[in-house]
């Protein structure tokens, strides 16, 4: 039997063939192209059409972008240099970049100050955004508002230091008194902080030269810096306010509930631009002439109110999404209201609310451009007003608006990427 085989064939392979690579049509880019772009006739047609559209767009855009002019001093010279060829007049960005970023009257030798404040912003928010960083960094976060104020507005360092000091003392008093009752602690803390602030503010004018940077009035803030200031301050203020409002709206105390409901519904029922007009125009009638209630401060208050009403509704959605059992579970453990909210309810509700909160934050950041309508020179106001109205640059639209869109896109896309990352981090369900 064993010979039969030997007689029919002269050679028998006794090892396996090594695995051969798949044919070139079934692997790598070719496979990908066949499967995703040319898998059937309609797909092929669509692919070719899309490629054509992309080609048309790029063949228009790239020569404009790459053939742009960067060094002329006005639009007429731009046109002379280009002489009919396609190309952007980017000279306007080269000449006015400082106005687009910092506004028209921020002192030119002080540009490092807002820039430094911007860089420090990342250090300050990092421990808040990334929970795996050492917690000691939170000290930087707490100090950041005072440092940034000093850097951007200038003046003596003693002003923010005394503000910090009065808050610290107020907090210490609060910590001492809160053991007797929360209300006493809060009142004591606020009064102590106010007294310290009052006393120190009597003293600081005499020391105004100490560690002073050149003072810059709020009126002189502008450009993208103004959008960043408004966006960062308003988002960070409106988040805690929004949480309080959402909790207040769910409260069983009728007066608190009513105040919160009325506030939220009123603010949500009024366009932001109306609130800004109130801040700019109407308040001017009620304040005695000569009182300089800072315009930026007025605008920050209005935008914060607006954003906090929206954030409150987002968080209320998160609270409502929690099953009743979570509340009852917290109560059954014997936690009081503050503890149950802090330890059980809010961590879950806020997690659910993250996409909504980010949505509001991105929307709010873009809404800061509305201040251009009340004659503040933010990035959009800067373009619409001074730059397009200068004899040199009237008529340069695409380059300027493209630049503004690019800046806003970078920030908003960054925020949205972070929130997606955060959602993945916080994902605890495994179904």
């Amino acid at each position: 039997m064993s010979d039969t085989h030997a007689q029919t064939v002269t050679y028998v392979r006794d090892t396996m063939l090594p695995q051969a690579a798949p044919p070139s049509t079934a692997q790598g880019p070719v496979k990908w192209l066949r499967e995703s772009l040319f898998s059937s006739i309609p797909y092929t047609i669509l692919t070719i059409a899309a490629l054509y559209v992309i080609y048309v767009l790029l063949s228009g855009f790239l020569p404009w972008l790459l053939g742009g002019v960067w060094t002329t001093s006005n639009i007429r010279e731009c046109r002379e240099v280009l002489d009919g060829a396609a190309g952007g007049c980017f000279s306007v960005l080269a000449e006015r970049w400082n106005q687009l970023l910092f506004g028209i009257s921020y002192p030119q030798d002080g540009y490092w100050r807002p820039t430094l404040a911007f860089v420090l912003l990342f250090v300050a928010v990092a421990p808040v955004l990334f929970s795996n960083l050492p917690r000691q960094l939170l000290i930087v976060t707490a100090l950041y508002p005072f440092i940034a104020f000093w850097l951007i507005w200038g003046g003596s360092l003693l002003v923010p230091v005394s503000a910090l000091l009065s808050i610290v003392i107020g907090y210490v008093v609060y910590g001492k008194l809160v053991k007797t009752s929360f209300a006493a602690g809060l009142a004591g803390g606020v009064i102590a902080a106010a007294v310290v602030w009052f006393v120190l503010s009597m003293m600081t004018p005499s020391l105004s030269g100490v560690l002073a940077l050149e003072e810059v009035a709020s009126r002189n803030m502008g450009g993208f810096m103004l959008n960043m200031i408004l966006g960062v301050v308003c988002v960070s203020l409106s988040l805690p306010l929004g949480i309080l409002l959402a909790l207040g709206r769910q409260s069983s105390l009728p007066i608190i509930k009513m105040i919160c409901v009325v506030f939220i519904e009123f603010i949500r029922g009024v366009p932001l631009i109306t609130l800004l007009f109130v801040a700019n125009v109407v308040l001017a009638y009620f304040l005695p002439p000569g009182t300089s209630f800072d315009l930026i401060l007025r605008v920050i208050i209005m935008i914060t109110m607006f954003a906090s009403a929206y954030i409150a509704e987002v968080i209320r959605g998160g609270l409502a999404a929690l099953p009743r059992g979570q509340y009852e579970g917290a109560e059954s453990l014997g936690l009081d209201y503050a503890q149950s909210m802090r330890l059980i309810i809010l961590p879950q509700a806020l997690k659910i609310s993250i996409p909504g909160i980010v949505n509001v934050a991105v929307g709010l950041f873009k809404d800061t451009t509305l201040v251009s309508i009340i004659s503040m020179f933010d990035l959009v106001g800067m373009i619409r007003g001074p730059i397009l109205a200068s004899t040199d640059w009237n008529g340069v639209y695409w380059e300027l608006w493209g630049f503004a869109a690019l800046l806003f896109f970078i920030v908003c896309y960054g925020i949205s990427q972070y929130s997606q990352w955060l959602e993945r981090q916080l994902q605890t369900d495994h179904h």
Partner: protein
Amino acid sequence: MNKSVFFGALTVAGVLAGASAAATLDDVKARGKLNCGVTTGLVGFAAPNANGEWEGFDVAVCRAVAAAVLGDPKAVEFVPTTGKTRFTALASGEIDFLARNTTWTFSRDVDLKFDFIGVNYYDGQGFMVPKSLGVSSAKDLDGATVCIQTGTTTELNLADFFRSNNISYEPVPIETNAEGQQQYLAGACDTYTTDASGLASTRATFENPGDHVILPEIISKEPLGPLVRHGDNDWGDVTRWVLYALIAAEELGVTSANVEEMSMNTTNPEVARLLGSEGTLGEMLGLDAGWAKNAIASQGNYGEIFAKNIGEETPIGLARGLNAQWTDGGLMYAPPFR
């Protein structure tokens, strides 16, 4: 209770506003700075340059007032205002003086309680058409499509003009001047209408300005002038006569170049009074004798300001037209300085 607080605050604000309005000149001198309202940006009239310094036709008036009152043309705090915020800014005392190409109308003067101190630019609504259309008069525009900013007086003027000439038109509503430029260039309308100065500055931004003509008809009166709050006549006098000093200086041949020399050795008694080497005009206004000299030395006379910012040598290229001196057939006419 809320209501009474509200009205109380209103009254207090009103009283304080009234009290402060009475002595704007003293306030400005004490502050050492003139708060001047300007537009957020209008080509040739007001815009900051690359160094953040404001320049333009309206800006020059602000600087002249500051030079006359404070002796320093740079002692001005420019407050940018929009068409919506300008009147509140002036009424609330945030600014002392508004030079923002504002049309002098009855209701603004009387009902809004402002005083227009004069006219620094006589404007009027005009039409721009492409040369290829072959139109030489606005009356030939029968059946034309017209780009028109909605909600403005230009819209009403347009309707009046076409009705009174018994011709028809098709309006293409637009929101802003920038939109108007784009629509017009894209051929969405046969003609674009707005103030003639605006048409000229718009045309100056085109790639081929020569392909477009501004028709000779001016269909409305738009006297643009600076204004102050009603009720402070001293301050009104100061600003009014600074403006007239600029206009009179052109008529009398006083320029920023020769003002020093003229104030020393002029034979014309009116020039001597204007420049303070004779008489007490400055004292009557509550200013020092060299008030008009400072204003003219820093900004030049009216003609120089016009030529530098919007005149024919600039890209905007406006002709003097109605804004020439009365001796040249225009409307610029300063009362005598005596």
